[in-house]
């Protein structure tokens, strides 16, 4: 395939970046959720609806 180097670089960076971002979101979510009491973890279930 012509330009294979460019293709691999482009696709690689793209999928890699999106994958890393997704991973970091998941990790961040996990580390935050353990610190918040259960009943206040989601928008829909909290009492005050500011």
């Amino acid at each position: 395939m012509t330009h294979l180097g460019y293709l691999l670089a482009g696709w690689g960076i793209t999928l890699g970046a999106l994958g890393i971002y997704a991973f970091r979101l998941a990790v961040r979510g996990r580390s935050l959720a353990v610190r918040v009491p259960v009943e206040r973890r989601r928008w829909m279930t909290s009492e005050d609806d500011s």
Partner: protein
Amino acid sequence: MTNPPLDLPAHTGSRTTQVLGAAVLVGVATMILLGFFVAPEDDLMADSVRMIFVHVPSAILTYVAFSVTAVGSVMWLWKRSVWWDIVAHSSAEIGVVFCGLTLITGSIWGRPTWNTYWEWGDVRLVTTLILFVMMIGYLAVRSMGGDESAVATRAAVVGVIAAINIPIINRSVEWWADRTLHQQSSITDGKLEDWTLFTMFLGIVVWGVFYTWSMTHRFRIAWLERELRDGDLDEAIAARRAEAAASGGVS
């Protein structure tokens, strides 16, 4: 009347995100299959046309994401909607990722196709770069700390300023460069092959699902951060009250 005990997990995932996430993975696998083994090479560009499958979806989602941020900014300023404020922030962050990828993939695509990593005469490219810097600025303003409401207002104003000035920036770059290397709307001029077109649209859909997945997680993260911040504030107030009570109730 007490509510049944909640069973919320200690992470930001849910059935919805699992389904969305699975869909993304399947979608990406399909894109690779179609993009590299089914879609034909282009008459002019040879195989570098396959960059279109990651470049165009990234560009489309950039505009979607920043439009959502613009709308969210207006909704905060107009209705003081916390929900919209969180949406605006989350969308901006994800948008910056897509925008960066748009620029990078565009640059990598440009090299074998037009023998240049960057073309100043390309209006869309230049405007996207300026947009990228503006949204970095938006995120910077968000991270400057201070009263939650003030931060939201500042960021919202930046969002509105960006939204209003982008058309002017686009017009000025357009006039500046009469020519553009950028492909004239490859979608409508019929130069794309069947499978290329299909895979590109598939890419847009997959990127859209990824955006939704990310927004869900990012929204929940922002919510949790707020809860923690408010929790700290509540604790501090409670501690102060305890102090006052202990010292005889005289403040």
